[in-house]
């Protein structure tokens, strides 16, 4: 669904690389799943919750490295469609 846009998509959590790699294989993910077990990046993005896990937030980062939008109400059931709508609303260019 996101392939129509000129974007680089990542999922990311504070799980270990091993766990995220197995998770990616299990779901045949065709995108990279980043691992941040040190939780420093999670802290920097403000997503680290009191439980020690990341909040389900999606950051849209523009070509200039600045944050375009932060979705703090991600619905897993419709996340794909919602991302397409968001990218369209943000005017992100479509790929060739």
């Amino acid at each position, binding site marked *: 669904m996101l392939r129509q*846009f*000129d*974007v*680089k*998509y*990542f*999922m*990311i*959590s504070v*799980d270990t*690389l091993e*766990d*995220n*790699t*197995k*998770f*990616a*294989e*299990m779901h045949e*993910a065709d995108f*990279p*799943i*980043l*691992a*941040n077990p040190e939780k420093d*990046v*999670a*802290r*920097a*993005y*403000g*997503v*680290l919750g*009191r439980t020690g*896990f*990341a*909040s*389900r*937030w*999606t*950051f*849209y*980062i*523009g*070509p*200039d*490295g*600045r*944050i*375009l*939008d*932060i979705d703090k109400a*991600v619905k*897993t*059931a419709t*996340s794909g469609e919602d*991302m397409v709508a968001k*990218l369209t609303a943000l005017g*992100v*260019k479509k790929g060739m």
Partner: protein
Amino acid sequence: MLKILALGVVLAVCAILVAAAVSGSQGDPLQPGDLAPDFTLKASDGQTYHLADLKGTTVVLAWFPKAFTGG
């Protein structure tokens, strides 16, 4: 009396410092328009990604709580 007051002030300051530390103090929340914090992280595809290297491209970074859990 003054000693009790001084002790109270010291305890209050300590409580505030502990609360700040416990809260995780992640700084001011990020807002649209802010520079996204840079990172260099390994990924499930065997690659290492450095956000700064992706300048010129729109990046979608979807944080999730835990692998192998529902959703």
